[in-house]
């Protein structure tokens, strides 16, 4: 499925999510809780702005030296006995992984959560070969059993209530217990434990790779990543090509901000730094390690006006504070990357033709700019997308005509004056006395706008300027 999570058109998608009471309650709670935790952490850390400047500097250094670091990383992984594959497209990445799976005669794969593997459609590619692919991150597992898609990059099943989750576990796996999170988690633990012990391949993403040692650093809480890279004989790590830190010393600042931004923790339960394959004499851990480095459109960013997006460390802080996300959740965006980072990244990876509507899901409030740990100017980039989309003629014709009309009037003071004055006297033609729109105007943008707002009315016989002009004249006349 790749980037897209929905076949519905934008308006329908948004209507669906906005009218989902359970979803909105969960989202509001999620944002409030995670937002408060994030803030508490940053206040406790102190000097948040300087830490952000530092992280931005580190990530910029990596991006400027991408080829150098990737060269070093690949050399070291191969030196350690691992294999590296550079994939320009998602198809190249999935073909390579299919090849490895076939060579290993793999029947079962366990996966730890990874956005890039969703982006390239890896699960579908492996299932095509008849391989059983199990998501093991609790949220992703629950989504997988009924073919649902993630709605957040850190807590993917946030759109589900415990009742819905219990229903799924009951229908698909015969769960009989109560709907308490503790009992359901225990059930999933027992179910998946068996799968880990019998899987042929473990697949992970990569938070940050360290070139000098050939290490992949992974940040997790549940223990599924550890299991997926301990018991199966093969480990495949898939990484977006920019996901590196210069060395261990300089992955620390990024690991200082990532868990605080994402979930409000100083560190997650497990920071697992894997330098595969295992060493001679070791009994557990993978015998074989593959690193798949994915471009899939990221190199187009390098010298584009959007290159700052490459710094993103996928923390989700931007969507946790976004007022638009708060109302519609990830599914409203229709992309696996939702929220502010999603509407910047998705059109870049997936093209304007398909995703030109996404940059409109934003009020440009700039809250996201202030929480991004690597200082990506998200609202600026969203505005740039809108500008590009309009220039390409992909935005709605009516919108472009309206803007053209406005520009024309705005550029001619005489016209402006006349339109404003006539508008003033004609204002009441558009609405009823209760501020609702009159019949023929109750369409399109006006209809949407007035769902929760009134149209303005003029209850005076003249405009303020006219009145004020008269008033000043009267004052002069009477001294």
């Amino acid at each position, binding site marked *: 499925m790749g980037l897209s999570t929905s076949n519905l058109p934008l308006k329908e998608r948004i209507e669906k999510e906005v009218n989902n009471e359970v979803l909105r309650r969960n989202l509001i*709670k*999620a944002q409030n809780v995670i937002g408060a935790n994030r803030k508490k952490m940053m206040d406790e850390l102190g*000097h948040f702005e*300087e830490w952000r400047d*530092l992280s931005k*500097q580190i990530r910029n*250094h990596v991006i*400027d*030296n991408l080829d*150098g*670091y*990737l*060269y*070093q990383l*690949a050399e070291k992984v191969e030196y350690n006995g691992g*294999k590296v*594959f550079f994939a320009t497209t998602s198809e190249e990445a999935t073909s390579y992984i299919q090849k490895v799976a076939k060579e290993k005669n793999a029947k079962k794969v366990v996966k730890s959560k990874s956005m890039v593997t969703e982006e390239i459609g890896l699960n579908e590619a492996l299932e095509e070969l008849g391989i059983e692919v199990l998501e093991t991150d*609790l*949220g992703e597992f*629950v989504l997988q059993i009924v073919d649902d898609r993630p709605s957040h990059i850190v807590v993917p099943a946030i759109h589900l209530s*415990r009742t819905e989750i219990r229903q799924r576990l009951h229908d698909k796996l015969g769960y009989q217990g109560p709907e308490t999170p503790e009992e359901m*988690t225990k059930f999933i*633990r027992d179910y998946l*434990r068996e799968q*880990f012990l019998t899987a042929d391949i473990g697949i992970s993403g990569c938070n940050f790779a360290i*070139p*000098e*040692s050939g290490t992949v650093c992974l940040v997790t*809480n*549940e*223990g*599924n990543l*550890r299991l997926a890279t301990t*018991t199966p004989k093969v480990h495949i790590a898939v990484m977006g090509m920019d996901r590196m830190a210069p*060395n*261990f*010393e300089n992955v*620390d*600042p990024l*690991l*200082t901000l990532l868990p605080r931004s994402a979930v409000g*923790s*100083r*560190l*997650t*339960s*497990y*920071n*697992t*730094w894997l*330098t595969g394959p*295992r*060493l001679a004499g*070791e*009994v*557990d*851990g993978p015998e074989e390690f593959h690193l798949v480095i994915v*471009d899939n459109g990221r*190199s187009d960013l*390098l010298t584009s006006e959007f290159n700052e997006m490459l710094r993103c460390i996928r923390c989700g802080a931007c969507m946790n504070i976004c007022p638009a996300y708060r109302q519609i959740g990830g599914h409203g965006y229709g992309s696996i990357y939702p929220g502010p980072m999603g509407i910047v990244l998705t059109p870049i990876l997936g093209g304007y033709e398909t995703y030109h509507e996404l940059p409109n899901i934003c009020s440009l409030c700039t809250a996201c700019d202030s929480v991004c740990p690597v200082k990506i100017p998200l609202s600026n980039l969203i505005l740039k997308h809108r500008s590009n989309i309009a220039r390409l003629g992909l935005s709605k014709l009516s919108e472009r005509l309206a803007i053209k009309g406005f520009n024309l009037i705005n550029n001619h003071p005489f016209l402006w004056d006349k339109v404003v004055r006539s508008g003033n006297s004609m204002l009441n033609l558009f609405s009823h006395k209760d501020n609702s729109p009159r019949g023929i105007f109750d369409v399109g943008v006006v209809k949407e706008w007035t769902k929760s707002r009134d149209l303005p009315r003029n209850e005076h016989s003249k405009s303020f300027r006219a009145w004020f002009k008269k008033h000043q004249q009267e004052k002069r006349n009477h001294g």
Partner: protein
Amino acid sequence: MANNRDAFLQNLAAKYGRPVKTKADPIPEWVVDFPKTRLANESRAKLLESYIEYCRTVGIDIQVCRPDNLAQSLTEITESFTDGKIIINDDKRLHEAGVTASLKTKFGDSEVWVWSGDKGRENIAVAANCNIGIVHAEAGLVESGSIILESDKLYGRSVSLLPRYTIVVLKASTVLPRMHQYATQLDARVQAGERTPSVVNIISGPSSTADIELIKVVGVHGPVGITYLIVDDENIINEAA
């Protein structure tokens, strides 16, 4: 290298309008040095006090002992969790402190499995059935209440992963302020030509999730509980006396 590397990197360099770099530029001077200075000026006693307090705040069971009663303390803690089914790494430090012997005396030889290279994957099957896994940490981190485990052929990754509970023995003298100090040591080892361990695990508590309605549940795929047993080898922790 027949893996697309050259074409891939050529593409990046071409976008930048320069030849391919096979090495990154030197790391520049950073705008601030907070990672290094944060917590770095605290006294050892204060650091250890903060460490113990923070761990307890976040629900990590933390106990302190003296070097001379490590074996006894560990055995007592283990006894409070289980009647048997214990797995322990083949760790010289634990053997030399008398821990392994003490456990075998208490629970019986058949209840204490020592990770053994020549038993292959049988070790994993045993670990999966054990109640307790006992390991020795390489270091601790005060800021995040963490312990650090490094892999080795005498140690199993499974020992701190598959059994329900983990008990980690940690020398107080190896407790560091925060990740920076461990990371710089690791960089130095890499620069000196050492191959990094096949896995380094920085563990900051038991496994947990908040995927269901953001309610935190402790104990998911990894251990449901973890105990740190700090050995006061610097003789500065009040509790140990």
